[in-house]
């Protein structure tokens, strides 16, 4: 494992992003716009905005990073650059960690801007610390990235890759406790939700928003999901084709 090679990949991906200002603008502005819309949708029920906005702060980065990563790695596959890389002295994990590093940085920037915007101009009140909210949002971004990397090995075309969003992320969104507290759900769904990473992401965000309870367990579990998903991503990355 070489730090130089991880950094090389991360820097390469960040350079690609830098040459694509429209993507950067959309990554930053779209969540801010959505939060603004949300604020005015609930203009007459500010307490609902308080409840939903916090959770969404964690979900945006996850959705965005999931999409970006699955499209980016699929592009590497279809234009042949992935094959070129895999015949070089690059460890598969180095490649995966390079991606995690680059998009982790992008996720951090997004999280800082969006939470600051929500707390400042939109007047979102959080009982816990903004920094903890940013940490959670960034972990969510990495989670989206790790899921994206993993599922993109099962997609042969861009169309398939994009379809993994409704197939893999939306069920988590329904079960994570955002729509209704998990305690209100039937037992079987609650059990399933125990094994979904987004559940802990939402739980952590809610705790920070309300300033009650410790998020340590949530963060550890998210970390565990991350490690497993990134490792699975590295394992499913095949050097040889049939």
């Amino acid at each position: 494992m070489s730090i130089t090679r991880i950094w090389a990949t991360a820097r390469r991906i960040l350079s690609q992003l830098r040459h694509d200002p429209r993507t950067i603008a959309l990554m930053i502005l779209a969540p801010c716009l959505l939060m603004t819309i949300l604020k005015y949708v609930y203009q007459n029920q500010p307490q609902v905005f308080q409840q939903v906005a916090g959770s969404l702060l964690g979900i945006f980065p996850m959705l965005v990073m999931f999409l970006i990563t699955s499209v980016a790695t699929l592009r590497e596959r279809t234009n042949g650059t992935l094959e070129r890389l895999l015949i070089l002295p690059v460890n598969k994990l180095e490649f995966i960690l390079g991606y995690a590093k680059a998009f982790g940085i992008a996720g951090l920037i997004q999280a800082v801007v969006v939470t600051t915007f929500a707390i400042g101009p939109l007047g979102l009140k959080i009982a816990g610390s903004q920094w903890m909210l940013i940490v959670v949002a960034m972990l969510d971004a990495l989670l989206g990235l790790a899921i994206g990397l993993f599922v993109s090995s099962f997609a042969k075309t861009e169309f398939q890759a994009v379809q993994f969003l409704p197939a893999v992320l939306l069920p988590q969104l329904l079960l994570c406790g955002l729509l209704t507290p998990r305690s209100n759900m039937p037992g079987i769904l609650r059990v399933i939700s125990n094994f979904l990473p987004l559940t802990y992401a939402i739980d952590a965000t809610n705790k920070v928003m309300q300033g009650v309870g410790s998020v340590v367990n949530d963060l550890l579990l998210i970390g565990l999901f991350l490690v497993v998903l990134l490792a699975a991503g590295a394992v499913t990355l095949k050097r040889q084709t049939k």
Partner: protein
Amino acid sequence: MQEAIRISKLTIVREGKPIVSELDAMVPSGKIVGVLGPSGSGKTTLFRSIVGVQRIHSGSISVLGQSAGSKDLRSRIGYLTQSASIYSDLTCLENLRYFSKLLGASDFSIQEILELVDLTKNKKQLASTLSGGERTRLALATALIGKPELLILDEPTVGLDPILRVELWKLFHQLADQGKTLLLSSHVMDEADRCDSIVLLREGKVLEEGTPSELKARTGKTDMESVFISLIGAT
């Protein structure tokens, strides 16, 4: 004569269809060997198996004394894929820097390679804005990074104008003179004349091999185009 590549009884089956069957071939060190054949004859699949990204069904491939695809070979082979595998959304320089970092090569060699493929003036240009020929040259440049001993070049001169093609062939001979081995495929028959030896493929089998003059003598033809047509056409 030292062997850079030795292939014996290689069979590759894809979706039940044999792409390469019972193929034997040898590439001597320090030579330029051209693989010619109609499209669909298995050239690209053969190259992919040599660099180790194509699963093989049976037989063996030894590359630089090691089994194809082994870890130690990864910094010793330069590979140019048929469609230029470069990052379109990076500049030439950024593309080369990335590959150079992965291989632990120096930035100095990047300048040298840019000169070699005549892209110095385009180095700050995004790869997506390059012409077809420039893209191929950039991809070739990435294959030259790290001074590999063996170059596997899949259609390196496709889409290049005649002047550039002559320049590239000069470069290929220069590299061979330095002791590097080049295995390349081509569709242009007059290029076959510039190879030290030729392997003629058809339907995944070696139809004929030898130096250009041997093949001409064997078929009684004077140019490679006619040699190719008489050998491929005859069954």
